[in-house]
C-alpha cells in the first residue's frame, strides 16, 4: 500500500477535485500557444517530406532505397522495430504498474498510452511500405479465396508479426480510448461551446458516471488490461522472431524474445520520460508529474539498462561459446570491430553506460540531464536495431556477397516523415485530449485541507 507519510504525496499543491479537472482540461480550453503552432508546422512539413518519400517509393520502386540483394532490409525495418519499441511503453506502463499497484502511474499513463498508439501507427507504415508490391499487401490476410484456397504461410514470422501488431494496435487503442471515456464526459460537462459539447459528448458514449457504469468501466479495464499484458510481451517477442527464426549469424539467437521485449520497454520508458518532461514544462503540470515520478522512471531505466548490458554481453559470449565461425565473425569482426563498429559502440555506450549516470541523485534530479539521457537512450536503441540488421546482413555466410549499405534520401525521408506523424499526433493529443487521466488521478488524491471556496464537488469521482 502506498504510504503518503513515508513517500510523499503523489500530487502536490493541495489540489481539490475541481482544481484537478480545471488544470487538466485547461490546455483544451485555452488558446493554442505559439510554440504548439510552430511545432505543429514543423511536424507538418516533416510529414509532407515523408509523404513525398512514400510516394517516390510506391511510384518508382524500392530501388529508390539503398537496400540491395544482400542487405534486403535497411532503415525501414530498423525504424519499424524502433517505433514498435517506443510503442511499448504506454501499455507496459499502464499494465505492469497497474499489476504492481504503482499508484504513481496515474498521472503518466494517459500520455504514455497516447504515445503508444501513435508510435505503433507509425511503425505499421514500415512493414507495408517495405513490400515490393504494397498494392498486394492484402495477400498477407488469411482470407478465404477461390485460389485453391490459397492460405498464407502460417510458419512465417512475418505473418505472426502482422497478427501481433494488428492485435496490439487494436487493444492498445481500445484500452486508451475506454480509459478516456469518463474524462471526455468531464470535458463535455464543463464545455461551454455547443460544438465541443457535441463532439466530446459523442466520444463520451453518454457517460453519466453512475455506479453501474463505473463498475462496468472497471471490469472492462481489467479485461483489456489482462489481454494487453500478454500482448505487451508477445508483440515484441514476435517481432524478434523475424530475426531469431532466420539462419543468419547474429539473428539466429534464442535470447532475442526477452532481449527485444526489455529493449522495447527501455526505449518506451525513455520516450515517456522525454515526453513527460516536455509536458510538465510546457503545460506546467509539475504538481501532477512530480520530480518523484521522473525519478521513479529514472530508477527503472537504470535497472533495464543493466539488463541490456547483460544481454549484449550474453550475445557476445554465446557467439564465442557456440564455436560457430560465422557467429564469431559477425560479433567480433563486424560489430565490435569492422565497418560498423561505431554503431555497435554507440549502442553499448548509449544503452548500457549512459543510463548508469542515473545512479547519482544529482543527475536524476536534474531534468535537463534526464532529458538528454532519455534522448541518448532512444538514439542508442536505434543503433541497436541498426546493429542487428545491417551488420548481420552485410556480411553473412559467403564473403562473395558481402556488401555495404547506405540509406538514400527516400529512406531517411520516410523516417523523418514518421517523426513528423508522431509529433503531429502527440501535439493533437496535447490539444484535444486530457493529457492526464482525470478520473484516475482523482483516485490517488489525498485531500488534506478543504478549500473554503469549494464546498461542493461538481466533478465526477
Amino acid at each position, binding site marked *: 500500500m502506498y504510504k503518503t507519510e513515508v513517500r510523499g504525496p503523489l500530487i502536490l499543491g493541495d489540489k481539490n477535485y475541481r482544481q484537478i479537472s480545471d488544470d487538466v482540461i485547461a490546455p483544451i480550453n485555452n488558446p493554442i500557444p505559439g510554440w504548439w503552432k510552430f511545432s505543429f508546422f514543423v511536424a507538418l512539413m516533416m510529414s509532407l517530406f515523408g509523404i513525398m518519400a512514400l510516394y517516390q517509393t510506391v511510384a518508382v*520502386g524500392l530501388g529508390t532505397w539503398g537496400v540491395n*540483394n544482400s*542487405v*534486403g532490409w535497411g532503415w525501414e525495418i530498423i525504424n519499424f522495430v524502433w517505433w514498435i519499441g517506443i510503442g511499448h511503453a504506454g501499455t507496459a506502463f499502464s499494465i505492469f504498474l497497474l499489476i504492481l499497484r504503482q499508484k504513481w502511474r496515474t498521472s503518466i499513463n494517459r500520455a504514455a498510452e497516447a504515445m503508444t498508439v501513435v508510435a505503433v501507427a507509425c511503425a505499421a507504415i514500415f512493414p507495408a511500405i517495405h513490400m*515490393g508490391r504494397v498494392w498486394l499487401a492484402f*495477400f498477407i490476410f488469411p482470407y478465404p479465396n477461390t485460389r485453391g484456397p490459397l492460405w498464407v504461410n502460417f510458419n512465417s514470422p512475418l505473418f505472426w508479426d502482422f497478427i501481433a501488431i494488428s492485435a496490439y494496435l487494436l487493444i492498445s487503442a481500445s484500452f486508451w480510448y475506454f480509459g478516456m471515456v469518463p474524462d471526455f464526459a468531464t470535458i463535455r460537462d464543463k464545455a461551454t461551446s455547443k460544438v465541443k459539447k457535441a463532439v466530446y459528448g459523442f466520444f463520451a458514449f453518454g457517460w453519466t458516471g453512475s455506479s453501474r457504469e463505473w463498475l462496468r468501466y472497471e471490469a472492462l479495464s481489467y479485461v483489456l488490461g489482462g489481454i494487453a499484458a500478454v500482448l505487451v510481451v508477445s508483440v515484441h517477442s514476435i517481432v524478434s522472431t523475424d530475426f531469431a527464426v*532466420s539462419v543468419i549469424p547474429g539473428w539466429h539467437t534464442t535470447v532475442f524474445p526477452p532481449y527485444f521485449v526489455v529493449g522495447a520497454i527501455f526505449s518506451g520508458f525513455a520516450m515517456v520520460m522525454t515526453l513527460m518532461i516536455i509536458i510538465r514544462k510546457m503545460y506546467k503540470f509539475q504538481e501532477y508529474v512530480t520530480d518523484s515520478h521522473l525519478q521513479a522512471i529514472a530508477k527503472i531505466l537504470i535497472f533495464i539498462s543493466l539488463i541490456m548490458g547483460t544481454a549484449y554481453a550474453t550475445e557476445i559470449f554465446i557467439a564465442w561459446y557456440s564455436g560457430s565461425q560465422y557467429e564469431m565473425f559477425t560479433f567480433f569482426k563486424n560489430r565490435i570491430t569492422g565497418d560498423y563498429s561505431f554503431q555497435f559502440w554507440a549502442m553499448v555506450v548509449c544503452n548500457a553506460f549512459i543510463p548508469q549516470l542515473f545512479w547519482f541523485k544529482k543527475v536524476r534530479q536534474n531534468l535537463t540531464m534526464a532529458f538528454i539521457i532519455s534522448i541518448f537512450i532512444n538514439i542508442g536503441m536505434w543503433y541497436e536495431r541498426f546493429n542487428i540488421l545491417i551488420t548481420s546482413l552485410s556480411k553473412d*555466410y*559467403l564473403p562473395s*556477397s558481402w556488401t555495404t549499405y547506405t540509406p538514400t534520401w527516400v529512406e531517411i525521408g520516410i523516417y523523418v516523415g514518421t517523426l513528423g506523424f508522431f509529433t503531429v499526433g502527440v501535439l493533437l493529443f496535447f490539444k484535444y485530449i486530457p493529457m492526464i487521466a482525470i478520473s484516475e488521478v482523482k483516485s490517488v488524491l489525498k485531500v488534506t485541507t478543504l478549500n473554503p471556496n469549494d464546498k461542493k464537488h461538481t466533478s465526477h469521482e
Partner: protein
Amino acid sequence: MEKKYWKSPEQLINKAEQPYDEQIIPEGKNLLDLIDEEIAQKPTSRRNFLKFFGFSFATAAIASSCENPVKKAIPYLNKPEDVTPGMASHYASTYFDGTEYNSILVKVRDGRPIKIEGNTLSGVTRGGTTARVQAAVLSLYDGSGRLQNPMKKGEEITWNALDTEVMASLKEISAAGGTTVLLSSSIISPSSRNLIEEFKTAFPGVKHVVYDPVSASGILQANRDCYGQAVIPDYLFDKAGVIVSFGADFLGTWLSPAEYTARYVQTRSLTNGEKQLSYHVQFETGMTITGSKADKRIPVKPSEEASLVLGLYSALMKKSGLTGPGGGTENEIIQALADKLLANKGKSLVVSGNNSIGIQVIVNAINNLLESNGNTIDFSRPLLTQQGIDSEMEELVAQMNAGTVSGLMLWNVNPAYDYHNPAAFVSGLKKTKLSLSFSPVINETIEHVGYVAPANHFLESWDDAEPKKGVYSLAQPAIRPIYNTRQPQDSLLKWMGKEGDYYTYLKNFWLTNFCGNAESVWKTTLQAGVFEKETTAVAVSMNETAISNAVASLPSGKTGTEIETLVYQSIAMGNGIHTNNPWLMELPDPVSKVCWDNFASISPETAATLDVEAGSVLSVNNIELPVFIQPGQAANTISVALGYGHKNFGKVAEGVGKNVFPLTVFENGTRSLANLSVIVEKTDGSYQLASTQMHSSMEGRPIVRETVLGSYLESPDSGNELHAEFEKKHVTLYKETEFKGHHWAMAIDLNRCIGCSACVVACQAENNTPVVGREEVMKSRSMHWIRIDRYYAGDEKNPEVVFQPLMCQHCDNAPCENVCPVSATNHSSEGLNQMSYNRCIGTKYCINNCPYKVRRFNWFRYATNDKFDYNMNSDLGRMVLNPDVTVRERGVVEKCSFCIQRIQEKKLLAKTENRPLGDGEIIPACGQACPAQAIVFGDLNDPQSKVSKLFEDPRNYHLLEELHTLPSVGYLTLVRNREENQA
C-alpha cells in the same frame, strides 16, 4: 446451280448494291479517322451527337484501360511444315566473328531466334560455347548499333543507287589500272574465299588483305620460318601431360577457347576414375582464368618473356646434352620445369600468346625438342580462324597514304578504332577514290568512308566456314533480315554482274566441292551443320637456321623497373566488336569481377610505388584509366582490357571505358600487345568501378574445398573431410521430405569449371534476366541468376584463384521457404525451390534468409523503362525474350529455377512419346553452355544417373551443409596437381 437467296429487292436485281469492300475499313486508316471524316461530312444532329459522344466515351474508357490491340495477328492459312506456334525449332549454324569460331544451334521460337546453343556434333567445339557466342543472339536485335540502310556519305540511299555507283567506280579504277583493296578480317568461308578470287578476276587490280586487330601473326610467321607453313597448328591439350603457357589465355580468349577448354578439362577430370592430372604452368602478366586454373602461375613482365622462353630452351638443350644457343633466364623454376618437360617428352605442350616471331620460333624449337609435333601438336588440321599478317596491314596503310590505293572495301574490320595508329589509317582512307564498308553496325570507321553497304547479322545470313583444315560447317539464316541489309557476298556477286544470290552460289559451291553433287548430302550437312573431311598426317621438319636467327633477333631482357603495359582481350569484350551488347557489358570479368568498364590493373606493390589506390586514375600515354588493384598482377606492369572506349558504336558502348588499342605497337614485323615504354602518371581524378564482388577472401570458411593430387590419391575425400562429419550431424525433429517422382539435382565439378562465365550469359538469355547498368551493379543489385564467385587464397603477390559457380541451391530444407508470409516461394514435389511471381509481395525476407544470397529482387521495373534502356526497353530488343519464361514485374523476388521450363518441356516430350525420361535429356541453360561440361543435371531418384554418381563421389560436398539446408546442388572438390596446398 445453287439457289440464290436475296435479302433486299435491290440485291435481287443487282442494283445499287454496296460493294462489300467499301464497308470495311480501308487499308491504312483506322476507325477513328473514318469517324472523323464522317463527322466532317455529316451535319451534326442530336442523334449523331449522341452516337459520337457515346462512342468516344466508350473508346476513351477502353483505350485508357486496355493495352493496344495487336495489329497484325494473322493465323496461318497453310501452316509451314516446320513451324508450330509455341514450339521451338533448332537450326544448325555457325558463329564466326572474325576471330572466334563456334558451331551452334539457333533456337527459333515463332520466327525469332532467341537462344544460341553449342552444336554437339561439332568435333571442334563439341557443344561448348563462350560468353560471346551466347550473347551474339542479342546483337541481332541491336536497334542502336545496327545499320538499317545503305548509305552514301552518311545519307541513306537505295541499294540500286549504291550498286550503280560502286560498280562504276570499281570499273573505273580497274580500267585505270588502279588498286582496290578488300580489307577483311580472317575469312574462313571457303565459298567466300572462292568468290573473292572470282571478284579479283572480274576486277583486275583488286587485292585482298587480311587484318586481324589481335592477330596470330607471330605464330603464322614463326611456323613459316620453322616449317615452311604459315599456319596455326592444332594444339591438342587433351594429349598433354605437361602444359606450359607463356601468356596464352587459351581457356579464355586465345585462338579457339571453347575447343581448348573442352580438350583441357579432359586432363583435369577425376570423375571417371582417372588417377592423374595434367601439370599446367602459366607465365603471365595479368590475371586470366587460364592462370587461375594453373597448378603453378608465375607473374612475369611482358619484357621478361623472351628471356624466359630462351632460358627454358637453353635448359632443355643442356639437359638433353645438346649444344644450344644458351642465354636467357636461368632459375630454379625454369630448371624444374625443364626436368618435368623432358620427363614428359611427347606428352608436353608449350604455347605462347606472344605475337613476337622470335619468341614463337623458340617455342616451336622447344616443342620440336620435346617431340610435341605429331603428339600434342597436329599440323594436319591447322586452325584457320586467324590469318592476318600484321606487316601486310602496315604496307597497306603506307600505300594508302602514298596514294597508290584507289579503292578500299572494308569487310568486318574497324581500323579507325582498333588499328594502332588510327589517324594514319584515316588519312590514308581519305586519299582513296572509292571507300566502302560492309559493316553491319555503326562504328568509328564508317564515318570516314564514302559508301556503307551494311551486312546482315550472321543469324540472317547464309555462310559456310572452314575453321580448321578439312573441318567445314554451314550457317543458315534463322530469320529474314530485319533491316534493309545485304550480306557482302551478295553485294560482290551483284557488282560482278553475276546472276543469282549468294545462297545459290554457296549451294553450288558445296554441291560441287563437298557433296558430290548430291542434294541429299547437302541437306544432311545443312541439318547437322558440320562436315569433316579425312586428313592425312603432316610431318614437319624444323629449319634450324630459323632458331639461330630468332635467338639473335630476340630483344635482350630488360631488367629495369619501368612500367610496361599489356593490353588483353577480356572474356566479355574480346577485341571490341561486341561492345554494344548489354549482356556482355554487364558480364563481370571472371577474375576482377568488374563490369561496365576497363581499367588499369596493377599489383598492390606497384600501387604503393605509384602512390595510387583503388579508385585513383592513372594516365597511361595520356589515356586516363581508373586503377584496379589486382593481386597476382606482375609487378611494374599494367594490364588493360581491349574493346572499350568506342565512340559512335551504339548507345550501350557509348562512353564506356577507354580505347587502349593505341597502346599496341608494331615492332619487328608484328603487332605487339605489350608496350615497354609508356608514360604513366598519377592524376587527381577518381573513379569508382562497378564490381559484383567486394570481398575476395574465404575467411577460412569451407566454401571452396581444395586438395592436391597426392592427397586425393591417398584418400579421395581429402580436403572434404568435413562433408562426412556434417552428414552425421543431420538430425531433424521433422519428417524428412520424400520425393516420389523425380528429385532434381545438380553437380558442379570445380576441377572442370574454368570460370569462363558462358553460363552466366546463357542463363541471362534463357531466363530473361534484365541488365541493370553500372549504377545498379555498384549498389549490389546485379540480377544474374548464376554468378561465378571468385576467391583468392595465399600470397597477395601471386594468389591462388578459385571459381565457384553459384545459383539457387534448391535446398530441400530451404530457409527462404519457411519465412515467406504468403508462400510465394515453396518446394515442388520434385525437389525444386519454386517462385510464384504472382503471389510474391516482395517482403525480401527470403533474400535475407538465404545463406547463399542467390535471390534477386526487382528493385525497379526493368522492362519498358527508359532508365534501363537496354534490350528490354524496345520492341526489337524484347524479341530476344524467351516466351517460356515470365518477365518479372517490379517488386518481386526471382532466382534460378533450374530452368523449370526445360524440365517441363522434356517431361512432356517423354510423356507424349510414352517413354521414361532419359538421364541427361534435361540440360539447364548453364550446363548446356558450359564448354567444360562442369555442370551436370539430373535425377537423384535414378541411381544410375550421372548426377547420382557424382553425388556419391567422395569429392562431393554441399555448400554451407552445416546449416542443414540440404541443398540439391553438390560441388566436387578442386584438386590441383602440385606438391602441397599453398593456402
